[in-house]
């Protein structure tokens, strides 16, 4: 094994020294130990790593959490307000039983990692750290390994039938130096169906992993809104494995955030499955730093699967957007339909968009395409609206909303899409200048 560069070695050792493994680790012990070994071997990401070319990992590596004051978001209705869901609340990474609903729901089994991990056996053992491990090749994801090794808690969801209603994990951020590490596992059994919602920022800096193992004909919907906190640093990984004829849809709305790195790692192992990953992000660099990175890796290792990536960003006053998307079609994954689009709207001369839309294809009977565009507001459209009496600021908002709304169309349930659209509109109103 090649020795790690000294700086990397030092950063990794310092960070590990500040973390502690849980005492009661039961069935997670092997997965945690393996993940720790992976992390020690790869080291934390460094500024010279190609996968971190456009997002500097220093703030995510730092032993001391870059402070982030909590943000009062009570000037608008809570995220997913009005959506009937089973609610689970985490305050700075710590489960709040008082504020949460009972963990009972028809069609699903729900438990918490910190509660059940002391046991020797649990259904989640087959998944915990397993999908993360599969996602480490061909690109290492050290923060995901760190999460598997050190996660303090998380929600374990096993869908055995059609879930009676969505499950919503609500994050509350109260401490300016919180640094939670949460690891959620979703197992969708054959033909089962469940929707998971995530709302808010889990802490000042957070590292979350979601592993979703979807069996044949299973359906998993995931919709996430990352809150409005301007100073928080987000580092998330979503791993999904799809069986035959299964469906996975994941959508993320990001408003503000000093640093966001959202990774999606999707793998098709069964034929005729479909995965859609989408995201809308908007940030205003004038109020606070905005750096948003969407990194997606889709692996087709089955026949006749469909993957779709739709990512849009609106960047204002020196905001920076990154998109790294890849479709890998393995030999034999014939009849693959892979689609990827990344677009950004730069509202001024200081904002930047950096993209790497990648294809790696080893099968011939496939239709794969990707597109990426960057530009400013279409002057003609703006003129059209203004000529009809729409004031300049309102016209700009309408165009921004229309641009981002295309991604909202990727969300299956209209009520959820509508609630996110309202949040976007409110954001634009607050940033009208």
């Amino acid at each position: 094994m090649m020795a790690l560069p000294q700086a990397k070695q030092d950063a990794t050792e310092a960070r590990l020294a500040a973390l502690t493994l849980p005492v009661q680790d039961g069935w997670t012990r092997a997965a945690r130990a393996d993940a720790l070994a992976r992390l020690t071997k790869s080291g934390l990401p460094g500024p010279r790593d190609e996968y971190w070319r456009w997002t500097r990992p220093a703030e995510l590596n730092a032993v001391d959490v870059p402070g982030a004051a909590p943000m009062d978001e009570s000037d608008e209705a809570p995220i997913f307000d009005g959506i009937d869901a089973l609610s689970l609340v985490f305050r700075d990474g710590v489960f709040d039983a008082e504020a949460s609903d009972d963990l009972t729901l028809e069609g699903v089994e729900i438990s918490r990692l910190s509660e059940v991990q002391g046991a020797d056996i649990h259904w989640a053992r087959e998944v915990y750290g397993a999908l993360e491990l599969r996602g480490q090749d061909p690109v290492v994801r050290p923060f995901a390994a760190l999460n598997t090794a050190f996660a303090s808690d998380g929600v374990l969801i096993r869908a055995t039938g059609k879930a009676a209603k969505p499950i919503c994990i609500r994050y509350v951020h109260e401490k300016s130096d919180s640094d939670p590490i949460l690891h959620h596992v979703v197992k969708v059994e054959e033909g089962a169906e469940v929707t998971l919602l995530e709302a808010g920022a889990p802490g000042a800096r957070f590292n979350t992993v979601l592993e979703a193992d979807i069996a044949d004909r299973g359906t998993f919907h995931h919709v996430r809104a990352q809150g409005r906190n301007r100073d928080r640093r987000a580092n998330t990984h979503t791993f999904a494995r799809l069986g035959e004829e299964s469906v996975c849809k994941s959508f993320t709305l990001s408003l503000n955030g000093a640093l966001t790195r959202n990774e999606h790692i999707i793998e098709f192992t069964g034929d005729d499955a479909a995965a859609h990953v989408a995201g809308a992000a908007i940030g205003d660099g004038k109020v606070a730093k905005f750096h948003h990175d969407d990194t997606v890796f889709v692996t087709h290792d089955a026949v006749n699967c469909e993957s779709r990536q739709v990512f849009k960003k609106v960047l204002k006053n020196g905001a920076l957007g990154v998109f790294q998307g890849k479709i890998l079609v393995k030999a034999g994954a014939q009849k693959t339909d892979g689609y990827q689009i990344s677009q950004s709207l730069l509202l001024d001369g200081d904002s930047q968009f950096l993209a790497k839309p990648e294809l790696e294809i080893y099968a011939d009977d496939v239709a794969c395409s990707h597109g990426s565009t960057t530009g400013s507001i279409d002057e003609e459209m703006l003129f059209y609206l203004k000529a009809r009496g729409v004031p300049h600021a309102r016209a700009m908002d309408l165009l921004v909303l229309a641009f981002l709304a295309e991604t909202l169309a990727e969300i299956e349930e209209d009520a959820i899409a509508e609630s996110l659209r309202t949040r976007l509109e409110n954001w634009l109103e607050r940033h009208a200048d």
Partner: protein
Amino acid sequence: MDDQTVMDQDVKEGVDQETVDAVKQLSGAYKHGWNTEIEMDFAPKGLTEDIVRLISERNSEPEWMLEFRLDAFRRWQKMDEPDWSMLRYAPVDYQEQYYYAKPSSMKEKPKSLDEVDPKLLETYKKLGIPLKEQMILAGVEGAEGAPADAKGERKVAVDAVFDSVSVGTTFKKELAQAGVIFCSISEAVQEHPELVKKYLASVVPVQDNYFATLNAAVFSDGSFVYVPKGTRCPMELSTYFRINAENTGQFERTLIIADEGAYVSYLEGCTAPMRETNQLHAAVVEIVALDDAEVKYSTVQNWYPGDENGKGGIYNFVTKRADCRGDRSKVSWTQVETGSALTWKYPSCILRGDDSQGEFYSIAITNNWQQADTGTKMIHLGKNTRSRIVSKGISAGHAQNTYRGLVSMHPKAKNSRNYTQCDSLLIGDKCGAHTVPYIEVKNNSSRVEHEATTSKVDDDQMFYCQQRGMDEEEAVALIVNGFCKEVLQALPMEFAMEAQQLVAISLEGSVG
């Protein structure tokens, strides 16, 4: 279909002789795979400071040139070979190569064609170079004054580089009348040191990358072009590169300078004999375009690709870069890459001048076990700069074909435009096609659009062609030519014809 079946096939009714001849000529795996048995003058194998000094000495170079080389060599020793490409190959032993080889007969200039090593002449004939130009290339004194073999024939000035040295440049006088300097770079070092000093390594710095640094240390020859202010070069300039000797690396260096308002079209062709071992080629091409200048650079790269089992072939590591220094300058790269076992090549444009333009048109065909990692960089620095990238990758057999590119819009490159289109075609299920584009947009008045598709040869199109009597291979060649149309159209006439045929040859044996 193998060659023999083509030869033995009865001519179908209605097929004219020309077609039959064309097919016969095209059949056979690699047309340029022959080898010329010529007495060569080699430097000892391996790379040391002494070899660098020897190369410099053989070229009778001035002290500053030797220093340039030694500096590069010392830097190169401290560098690591890049490993970020999608190319997979056994490590190259840089000490197992010859870094200098020259036909011995070139020691003294022959007086007439009769004195020229007939084998050298044979080489040019096989390459399809006209007789009069053969004389000049063979270094026959006074050959330039001889009448051309056909009046009114379109003139193309040729510089031929055989292994390490330039063996001759044609039409020098006529070009000199127009003020154009077209000679080998070793001559330029002697005769135009001020130009060489000013521009050499000004586009590709000595320490730019591993292969460019190696080239700076050991380049033995290459072409030099200077087109003065306001001059439209009266003919197309062309270079033939040929690696002949075994275990020889070719390291040519080309420098093209288009002064204000100048125009030049430059063609480059490459061939090599079939060898069982891999041979190294690490070239550097630098182009400088000043205000209102335009350079069109076309390449048909047909180095030996190795046999159908992946044995042998050229390792082609090339750094090509154009600096559009002047306002309104334009550089256009067109490449047809059908040869080489490995291709590592990214012809790029630095769009420094306001309103400057860069273009990249590429066809990369890989068959059998070939691997290509090629693309371009368009660096927009000036205002209102425009770039266009059209890349067509075709992969067959067990080949891997990667497009890798960068489009970068710097904050000051206001109102700039880029359009990129990368299409890949896969023939067979054992090959791979990859796209790795980097897009960096740092201002909002610019527009960047990138599109990429990957598909296979359309079944309906195949059916249509076959239904009209074409066999499978012909049909694929036709469809692939259609797929490449936009790039083929960007090539100069002579090259376009050759390229179309090459497309068909390169894909032989890829179907059925």
